[in-house]
């Protein structure tokens, strides 16, 4: 039996198709302006990846993410908080805290023993602590985001970035560059600034020994390294962390399909 989950985020649409409960196909594409169309494209590509002949063969589908209501073909919409909790726990069974950093927001979710959401917090209205903040800084520094981890490790002394407001932080970065500060400490300072905000959120819901990062920014090793130092424990990143929301949605779709049988 095929089921699917679609996560329509602000930056990317992710789709996961399960065959008998196991991941059989995935896809990720940029969100674009027509969320419904992009969601369909992503789902079709994931279905093709899974070997689904006809999309009608998908027994149940759940949509999540900011654009979830745009996915008219979904059987149900569920918030990304619940989906990341379910997907994160499925990726890492011991997870008790999920840190999800997406393009326009960040969330910290505390799970109970059964893997259900016990508490959650989200970032404030601004871009601080989000993927967009890091993207803007990467553009300013002319460094690909994928190199942040390597450059983080290349220095032991982070530059002080006092603001997490994207505009103010960008002007701080410009000021540091004009004073001849190398890009490595600036990048480490930026990762520390994001991690500072995230660590505060983690402590609000309650620190646990098993912290898992999901969402697009989890692939940025610099933020993970900074967060580990702030929390004083290891933060794990599942290999398919970007798909945690879509995977969680697919797991809920599977439960729906099984109930319907």
């Amino acid at each position, binding site marked *: 039996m095929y089921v699917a989950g679609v996560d329509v985020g602000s930056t990317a649409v992710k789709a996961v198709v399960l065959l008998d409960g196991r991941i059989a196909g995935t896809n990720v594409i940029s969100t674009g302006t027509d969320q419904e169309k992009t969601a369909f494209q992503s789902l079709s590509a994931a279905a093709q990846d899974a070997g689904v002949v006809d999309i009608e063969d998908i027994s149940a589908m759940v949509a999540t993410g*900011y654009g979830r209501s745009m996915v008219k073909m979904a059987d149900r919409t*569920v*918030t*990304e*908080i*619940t989906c990341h909790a379910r997907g994160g726990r499925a990726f890492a069974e011991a997870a008790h805290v999920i840190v999800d950093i997406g393009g326009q*927001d960040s969330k910290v979710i505390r799970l109970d023993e*059964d893997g*259900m*959401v*016990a*508490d*959650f917090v*989200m970032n*404030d*209205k601004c871009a601080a602590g989000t993927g967009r903040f890091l993207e803007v800084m990467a553009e300013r520094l002319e460094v690909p985001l994928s190199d942040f981890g390597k450059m983080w490790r290349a220095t032991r002394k982070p530059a002080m970035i006092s603001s997490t407001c994207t505009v103010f932080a960008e002007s701080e970065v410009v000021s540091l560059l004009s004073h001849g500060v190398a890009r490595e400490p600036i990048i480490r300072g930026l990762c520390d600034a994001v991690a500072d905000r995230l660590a505060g959120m983690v402590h609000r819901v309650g620190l646990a020994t098993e912290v898992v990062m999901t969402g697009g920014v989890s692939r940025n090793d610099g933020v993970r390294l900074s967060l580990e130092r702030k929390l004083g424990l290891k933060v794990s990143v599942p290999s398919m962390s970007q798909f945690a929301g879509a995977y969680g949605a697919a797991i809920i779709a599977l439960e729906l399909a099984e109930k319907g049988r």
Partner: protein
Amino acid sequence: MGPRGTRSVGNSLQVRAFRRFARKPWCYGAAKQVVDIMERRGWKPYQISAIRCVMDDFRQAYTGERPCIYTTAFVPTELVYGLGAVPFLPEVAAGYAAAFGFAYDALGAAESMWYSADLCSFHRAGVGAGKLGVLPRPSAVIATAHLCDGGKKSLHRMSKDAGCPFYLLDVPYDRSERGQKRLRDQVEHIAFDLPEKVPGISPEGMAEAIRVSNATLDDYLEVCALRQHSPSPWRGGEALNYVVMFLGAWGNPWLAEFYKDLASHIRGIIASGEYPCCSERHRLLWLNLRPYYKTGLLDYLELELETSVAFEEYNWPYWSELDPDDPFASVARKMLANFGWGPIERRLAAVDSMIDDYSIDGVVQFAQWGCRQSNGGASMLADHLKRRGIPFLNLGGDGVDVRNGSEAQAMTRLGAFVELIDAKKAR
């Protein structure tokens, strides 16, 4: 274009219309006819009573029929009605500005007066509306030291602009007899000092205002009792709109009419079974206020997520019957009874009572941007509710300034909160 279709700060159609017509007596005659038509077209009696109550006060305040006294939301209005004046709350005016789409003008005007964007927008928009010239001219200002610091200071500024007397009631933290007497003496001082400064003011109506307030409280307690019914018979999203009545009309006979009509409406809903949210999944307690600009947030919560706001902190009757034979002490006692003032334990106890009385499944605090009185206690409130096993959501946002919140984010938080309660109940 600014948010909500305004053209430029201070020059929107709504602002120009207010400036031009609000002080013309004929305007209220025309408005009365419109309300009569609304009544004939099926508007509910409580809605009509509320509009008439507000219009009546507006007419008297704007046309100068009676002296107008500005107050903060926590000054008992029995004092103002009792002095023969009509109360006007700039914070409530800020809510109207948001609802009628000219908050952007008022906020812009306040910012031009050096008011920082991190001051509560209810105060910023209130003082900005004063600068725009859309508020009635005050004969005096009575502010209170309790709860909002921004309120008393912005009102002080407004009294200076208007050149009218300013009184600050210094409310003590403790509720001892000594504290109550100190506050009573301040109230008495206002009641006897103000008539010497403002024509038309007299303390002679104080006892009557207290009697009216007591009679209204009886009607209101019935409304509160009816709202304990499950499914919820009246939408909290609407109840939060009528906070304006609760904050600004005690001592006005119209308020009793409003609550009588409202009780009758709620009884009718319960009898017919036509609840606003028939398949009520959960019942929430809502702390602080709501966004008053156009938003689908409460509809999303109550209609789409089928989760009722069963009761609201700002509608909780926290005082008991007052003594008309000692009206000054009564006003003092009412102020001191406010659970938001003093140690956080007072607010926690009030929240506990509301949770028990209204069979609450979860608590949402609308964390108004810049509101110290509620946000300052958020941590202890969260801990307290956690100990009780009641899910809690601190929902950041702004009641007046649309720029201080993201509706999509707020909806996600509410959606996730409802899913959390779903999961908790399923276990």
